């Protein structure tokens, strides 16, 4: 009761204890409000994350009584083993390709449905729909489409392509197929974030540009794009981090194959820890992923702060 009656100013560093406004106010049980959330958070996130870092410098198999300290051996192994090294770089490649494609397409679609076309509301709803569908389900739908006797091959043949490839069975093409499926599923997400950003485009500047006779291209680069900077930052971060963490699509489209050609950081982690029982090594892979994600989040935080002039 005591703290609550105090002003709504943001928390200040080292603020003195709030003065009781009413004489009968007693010691407050407000920390009880935080307790359930804090317990769940510490149990599920904080403590296991610390344990994970500790585990990454051991060779523990999850069962034996002794956890042997191996220093940075697990990390050396990630970068010296050609397969796990390739998986790490492949994950970065997926993240970059998906991010670029998803944001370019998302922005184009956002501009399209932000126009005066009559079907804009229906189109928005349809284009966003894949975002809410279970990724496992969309992956299987695409597996059917890309199968050697599936509709994509049939359409290609109808257009005169001889011997269309087996997209998911070819170790060079499978990774691109995974990117296509991810972009298809999440472009609607980028689109709605850009759409929200487009609401912040200054309308008087748009009006003025018509009077000045500026064309649509000029108008886009001089007025619209600068106003979209925060939406762009959020979109880039979401898609890069989503790409770095990709698991569902890989596991259900190719299972890491053919011949490990589509293994990523997350599938490596899953395989090392939960198939081969190498918990220390798996934890080291998780640490690498965490470092990559934190670098991206840090860059995003700084960029947003600068854009909002904070």
């Amino acid at each position: 009761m005591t703290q609550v009656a105090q002003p709504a100013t943001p928390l200040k560093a080292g603020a003195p204890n709030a003065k009781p406004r009413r004489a009968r106010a007693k010691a407050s049980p407000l920390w009880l409000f935080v307790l359930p959330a804090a317990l769940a958070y510490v149990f599920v996130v904080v403590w296991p994350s610390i344990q994970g870092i500790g585990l990454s410098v051991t060779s523990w198999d999850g069962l034996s009584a002794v956890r042997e300290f191996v220093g940075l051996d697990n990390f050396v192994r990630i970068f010296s083993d050609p397969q796990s090294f390739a998986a790490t770089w492949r994950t970065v490649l997926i993240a970059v390709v998906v991010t670029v494609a998803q944001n370019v397409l998302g922005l184009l679609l956002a501009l399209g449905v932000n126009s005066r076309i009559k079907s804009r509301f229906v189109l928005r709803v349809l284009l966003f729909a894949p975002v809410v569908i279970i990724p496992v389900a969309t992956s299987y739908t695409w597996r059917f489409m890309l199968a050697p006797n599936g509709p994509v091959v049939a359409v290609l043949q109808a257009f005169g392509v001889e011997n269309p490839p087996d997209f998911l069975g070819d170790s060079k093409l499978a990774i691109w197929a995974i990117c296509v499926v991810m972009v298809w599923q999440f472009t609607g997400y980028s689109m709605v974030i850009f759409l929200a950003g487009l609401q912040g485009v200054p309308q008087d500047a748009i009006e003025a540009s018509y009077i000045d006779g500026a064309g649509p291209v000029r108008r886009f680069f001089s007025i619209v794009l600068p106003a979209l900077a925060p939406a762009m930052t959020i979109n880039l971060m979401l898609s890069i981090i989503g790409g770095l963490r990709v698991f569902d699509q890989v596991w259900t489209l190719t299972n890491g194959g053919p011949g490990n050609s589509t293994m990523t950081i997350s599938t490596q982690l899953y395989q090392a820890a939960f198939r081969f029982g190498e918990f220390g090594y798996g934890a080291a892979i998780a640490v690498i992923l965490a470092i990559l994600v934190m670098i991206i989040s840090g860059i995003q935080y700084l960029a947003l702060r600068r854009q909002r002039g904070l």
Partner: protein
Amino acid sequence: MHHKYTWRVGVLEVVMILVTLIYVVPLYLLVNVSLRASNDPAPALALPTRITFDNFAEAWERGNLGNALVNSGVVAIVSTVLIVLFAAFASYPLARSLRRWSKWTYYGFLAGLLLPFQLATIPLYLTMRDIGLLGSVWSLILFNVGTQMPFSIFLYAGFLRSVPIEYEEAASMDGAGPFATFWRVVFPLMRPITGTLAILNLINIWNDFFTPLLYLSGSGQQTVPVAIYAFFGQFTTEWNLVFAGLLISVAPVLLLYFVLQRTVITGFASGLKG
């Protein structure tokens, strides 16, 4: 001039409709293939020669989908209710109290926004194993509640700071304690964020694959994504059956989406998913 429906807008309209039609072909196929018999000679993109609903009944039975739908529903709903309650209660002192502990606790929660959950995955799995929660839906609920705290508290606290404090002052003048003030005054005021969080969590938890794959594999209990993963492993080439199963599995969320499209889209557009 630029408010009129010009021929350029007309061209754009046609282009956008065509693009969207191509975009939703996978969804069309999902429905189309699940409605035909396995020996239907019509090409996948063409309509079925004869429409049948047999696939749904068979997928439902052989995929044990009823059980999976119930599990997914329980996990999604119980997790979401607990996430909303825990985060709303916690955000109240974190946003309002000027004490030092509340500031640092808030920063402690925010730090979780940066951490990918994979870092905690292996140790948490071992803990769940040791306390005997593997194979139980409670492990998933606990996981969802813990991992969603940072983002939910961040949203609630941010919202609460923009709410004027006068309502709460009036309530406490009337002699209401902190609990009554929160429950009768503050929590109802936070309804917009509660709605956003509820929808985001219901959808994300329903769709999650990795965590239930880990915690429930080998047990009789499955959630929907893991059930269709197993179902596909069993009926790989029987696409009409697989697609019927997929359609049953995505139907609840798709229905929620089509009914509440505006709320869902603005919820996602509010930026962060975590």
